[in-house]
């Protein structure tokens, strides 16, 4: 009898978790929700996370359920003064519960390595943007095709939709981390080193990004936005920025590291 109760309880718990995850309920809404991707990289990362999350949740329910079952089933009962059978172990069981997780986990290795390689590559025909992290703002530079003054913008990044964008990440002071949760996971921005990452926005919109590595006093306020827009809008924004820059005579950002 108790078995049936427990399995029902487990099913209910699993249902609740699933319902919560998929309800789209407003308490889960966030402009930085990693489960609501708007770009190719973030979507792949969400999918691979789900690939492990569901088995992990299943194992969790199984283990916690079994634990609860054991506690109820084998509790000391009033008046029972006898001692239980003194079992010292079982080698077959030990081998089984060593091998079984190995097999299960081996299943995760190919997608993991595949994902690492995919994210580590440099896509061809990508738009290149230099990202500069400073305490506490972001400066973005779009190198000009003719090697002239790059177009710059602060705390606002514009990218064309459905195009690979490669970022070259530089820091002028301490370590930062470049992160737009709905578009892609983060990559650290480290002084004295150039890191790379790529993204591809697949939905037009404005997305929230934030420094993800503790970088001092105003770390929490080191935010920026990414505007994913049509190619035309992107080009006209670039022209507009370039014109504004010429007018003000704003110098190109010197990418000095340290002192």
């Amino acid at each position: 009898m108790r078995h049936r109760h427990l399995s029902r309880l487990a099913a209910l718990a699993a249902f609740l978790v699933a319902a919560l995850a998929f309800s789209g309920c407003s308490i889960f809404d966030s402009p930085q929700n990693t489960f609501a991707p708007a770009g190719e990289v973030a979507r792949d990362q969400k999918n691979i996370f789900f690939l492990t999350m569901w088995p992990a949740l299943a194992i969790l329910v199984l283990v916690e359920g079994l634990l609860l079952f054991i506690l109820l089933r084998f509790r000391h009962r009033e008046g029972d003064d006898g001692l239980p059978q003194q079992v010292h172990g079982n080698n077959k069981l030990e081998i089984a519960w060593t091998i079984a997780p190995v097999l299960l986990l081996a299943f995760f290795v190919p997608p993991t390595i595949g994902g690492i390689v995919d994210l580590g590559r440099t896509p061809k025909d990508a738009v290149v943007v230099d990202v500069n992290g400073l305490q506490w703002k972001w400066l973005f530079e779009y190198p000009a095709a003719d090697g002239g003054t790059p177009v710059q913008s602060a705390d606002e990044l514009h990218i064309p939709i459905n195009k690979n964008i490669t970022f070259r990440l530089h820091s002028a002071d301490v370590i930062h981390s470049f992160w737009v949760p709905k578009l892609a996971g983060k990559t650290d921005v480290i002084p004295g080193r150039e890191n790379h990452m790529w993204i591809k926005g697949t939905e037009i919109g404005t997305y929230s990004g934030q420094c993800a590595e503790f970088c001092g006093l105003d770390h929490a306020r080191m935010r920026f936005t990414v505007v994913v827009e049509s190619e035309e809008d992107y080009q006209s924004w670039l022209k507009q920025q370039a014109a504004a820059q010429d007018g003000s005579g704003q110098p190109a950002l010197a990418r000095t590291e340290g002192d």
Partner: protein
Amino acid sequence: MAGAGYAPKRVTMADALRQARENAGTYKGIWSWIGTVDHKRIGLLYGLTAFFFFLVGGIEALLIRLQLATPDATLLNPDQYNRIFTMHGTTMVFLVVMPLSAAFFNMVIPLMIGARDVAFPRMNAFSYWAFLFGGIFLNVSFFTGGNILRGELGAPDGGWFGYAPLTLNRFSPGNGIDFWMLGLQILGVASLAGGFNFVVTILNMRAPGMTLFRMPLFVWMTLVTSFLIIFAMPVIAVALFELSFDRLFDANFFNAAKGGTPLLWQHMFWLFGHPEVYILILPAMGIVSEVLPTFSRKPLFGYPFVVFSGVAIGFMSWGVWAHHMYTTGLGSVANSAFGVSTILISIPTGVKIFNWMATLWGGSIKFTTPLYFSVGFIAMFTIGGLTGVTHSIVPSDYQQQDTYYIVAHFHQVLFGGAMFGLFAGIYYWFPKFTGRMMHEGWGKLHFWIMFIGFNLTFQPMMILGLMGMPRRIQTYPDGYGYGFWNMMATVGAFMIASSILVFMYNVVRSLKKGEIAGDDPWDGRTLEWTIPSPPPAYNFAQIPQVHALDDFWHRKYAEDPKGRPIPVPAGASDHASHDEHADGHGIHMPSPSYFPLIAAAGLPLIATGLIYDMAIVAAGALVLLVGLYGWILEPATE
């Protein structure tokens, strides 16, 4: 003491010292504590001090939770917030979980292996004093930022992980980081002294007959932990020395502007930091492995497998450090290798969980408070382990790295795991060391409030992380959807805090009015339950002879061929000839000594001098030298 002669003898330094040592030997008064080399008293000092810091770190946690409870809060400004979260992490790791584990090593290990003390009793005292002074030194930094009453805090502000170059003078100009890096060095010395002491104690001082594979699991886990300490602390020491050179003498180890390498810090910090995680959790695993068999009234299932999985974890903990660094751009090959090694380390951890459950299986489980906390450990640590597996999936970890998902994960391991395990140990061994039982009702109330509060605090953090909330942010704007879950976490944190009040009440109450425990209140399995509660200074009137794993259990119960236990009739046991309650007359115990304290006092002086004035360094070195010199010349027993 005074002679009968009427020409009073001139009191020499040596006489004064002898007098002081005699006072200490009487086991009464404050001086007997200051000079003590008794492992039980040192263990108690460790425990009380660590618990005090637990309250300090807990108050810091509550301040963090209050600040984060609502969007755009201004209770703490960014500067205060950064210093407080840095001190919370540093305190909980170095001043709470590590020394609480050390308290258990001290109190329990000699009793479990049938020894009268540790191998190096004075080094043990030194270890405690260095820890105490290191902890005070770290916390004194709060007062160096100006007027603390106006909220001007001076504590370190670089996070417990202290990533360079944020910790260099240019980015953190006050003295906070100096106190942090030098304080951790002092604590490292304390840990190393303890580590060596327990390796030697366990290898050399076991009672006759206690082979390695007759050692209780807690002794095994202490041995593995001590080896990890011996190998891990020097790594952080080197990293901290390099940081000290950068800060104090303008070196450029981590200064990218001058060709230094910020990532070097991360490699060294995590090469220490990941074994450190297991330094924090293995002792709790050892405690749980003692508590579960006792209250299931069955031996530990698969003893050799639990031992070897612990040893395997110890070795493998050295090969996973870069999973803290996936996003630093190590490259695909390194990320793949560390992803796979992180997958692998979950296997011995899983083996342990299965064996604990199999220990409970088929038992006659007695639901005492220590059992509650041990089961809570398994339940919560399983979540910590499974979320740990998700970290090995590198591509998705690029999303979770440095978010509240990680904060949730390691609190599952270090609070849901380590702290629950340590509380199980406190309830389990309290009767042994005080002679009185803790109150079961209050104990279970403590458990339930803490268990519910814990889940309310840390499960929402998992959701917050997946919703994109980064760690270490002083606040977040409205409209990000973080307010609801953060408020829940804050309510949970205050529940945990109130459960600690219940615990403290229970301790005080039980010390006064607790039921008298007797030698063996739990029908225990290991040697500490063969001696009186509280144990006499010499522990064992006669050193026991060990014949089996769970020796004491086998003195009480024999097994028939089918594995069913039969009580051994009183007096029939071949061990009964031991007279455990002899008065211990004539047993020579190591004499008390003040020199470990003096030597340890030199360390914070040297550290203070490095920050403020080299003359104080010289004074500190002199104190250290006097302490060591006296220590060497002092006879071990009189």
